């Protein structure tokens, strides 16, 4: 595969490598190469659908020297050797009124009934686009455009863990309690983020997610099993 990368600096503290082809598989691959070979030079990595950021300690290695190392390493690698097989995750979601805080708002904006919204949502096949922003936040692409509405003007101060929300063409899972501006439509009892496991989040970028509906009794039962 031809290597098409572009490089950009984020101040003196990070290098961002963007890929113009190959998408997330390419990102996983260069991450697995660079995280091994540059273990001593790089403090952290962040993945987005099109880029990989490498964080340096500017007192140990300048971002320019890091960039030279990265370029020469990537030159000598053949990429596209192994395609990661995406996993499919089936995640239960409860749309009980006490969880779907914004379903009425979504209904008003989309001219769809709550039942129609849920049906459209459940038919969706979603892809893990990004993990981040806050610990374990999962960005999923593939939301039906009929459900596409903007983020709320005033974000909520607190959204409870497990909340499932939508904004624009994405849906997201709040795996920890946090502030947020997305429209909450339901909640999952399954915790996808566990700080005590390694890695702390089981989903990976590029994985597939499908949702299935559960009622409040099933929700409570699953929630108790989690504990």
């Amino acid at each position, binding site marked *: 595969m031809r290597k098409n990368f572009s490089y*950009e*600096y*984020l*101040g*003196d*503290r*990070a290098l*961002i490598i963007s890929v113009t082809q190959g998408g997330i598989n390419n990102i996983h691959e260069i*991450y697995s190469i660079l*995280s091994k070979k540059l273990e001593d030079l790089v*403090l*952290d*990595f*962040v*993945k*987005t659908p*099109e*880029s990989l*950021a490498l*964080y340096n*300690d*500017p*007192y*140990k290695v*300048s*971002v*320019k020297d890091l960039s030279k190392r990265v370029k020469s390493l990537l030159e000598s690698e053949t990429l596209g050797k192994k395609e990661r097989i995406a996993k499919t995750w089936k995640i239960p979601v409860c749309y009980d009124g006490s969880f779907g805080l914004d379903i009425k708002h979504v209904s008003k904006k989309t001219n769809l009934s709550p039942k129609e919204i849920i049906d459209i949502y459940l038919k969706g096949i979603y892809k893990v686009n*990004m*993990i*981040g*922003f*806050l*610990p*374990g*936040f999962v*960005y999923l692409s593939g939301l039906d455009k009929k459900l596409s509405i903007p983020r709320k003007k005033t974000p909520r101060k607190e959204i409870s863990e497990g909340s499932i929300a939508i904004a624009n063409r994405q849906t997201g899972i709040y795996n*920890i*309690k*946090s502030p947020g501006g997305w429209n909450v439509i339901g909640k999952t009892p399954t915790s996808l*983020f566990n*700080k005590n496991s390694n*890695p*702390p*989040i089981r989903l990976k970028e590029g994985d597939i997610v499908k949702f299935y509906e559960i009622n409040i009794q099933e929700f409570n039962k699953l929630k108790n099993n989690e504990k």
Partner: protein
Amino acid sequence: MKNSIEILRSGSFSSIQDIKRKNSRVYGIPRSGPMDKRSHILSNWLLGKNSCEETIEMTLIGSKLKFHFDTKISLCGAKSECFLNNRTIPMNQVLSVEKGDVIDIRKIIHGNWLYLSVSGKIISDSYFDSISTYEKVEIGGNNGRKLSNGDYLKFKPLKTINNRKVPKELINNFNEKIIRVIKGPEHKLLESKIDYFTENPFTVSPTSDRMGIRLNKVGKSIDFDISIKSSPVVEGTIQVPPDGNPIVLMSDSQTTGGYPRLGVISSVDISKFSQIKPNEIIRFRFISLEESIALIDYDFKKVKSRIGIDLVS
């Protein structure tokens, strides 16, 4: 309890921080660590500890601590009212503390962040190699929580060394309000309004925290209705939300963001920036990446020649 410190008064927000977390951002977990790394490093140097080891970070109203063992401590960073058994004690030097003594940090005066280093290793589970406290997922020292009244911190005592004092020229004078910035990836999107960021000053907002320092425009702010794809951010990143009042991301920064990134504060100025108090005026000055790298090099050599340690960030 043997070899422990008892928290008599928690203070506004005191937490354990080190400069050790690695490889956590890929899961959305921030690196955390001290807001003013320079003062953190100096307080550790005073006691002969490695720069990266933990200190107790305090802000606004500090903590009141009872020591249950003989040890040495040091205090660096924001100029504060510090007391040992009700007697004023100096900062930026080594202090002896005996079993039963009470250290009280009553008020932070100049600056925002004070660092207390103890000649001991806090016994705590580490997370991604670090005991920096991050409350959102309860990780790091003191069971992942800020200090609370009645908590005990347990220590493994370290060997103490001869008395040291921080050389005057390495102490922050809290007078510098010009912050040097390297242009960020979305600088071009904002270029037509760049005067807005350089001509008139901003003030530090009191709503700031360890995640980000909010700035308010002095005079009229202008709208920037630009959003970008979620992109990586780093400590020091200046984001410009639609209301035109920038947010500077700090130690507990999120890993990605959707606001345009005007610039990133040079690593030589982040510690200094963190100490600028709410309502004080700051100005930005753009420098090139090459200038910033040269400043880092100079800073590294200066500290190395004065106190013999390698700076880290």
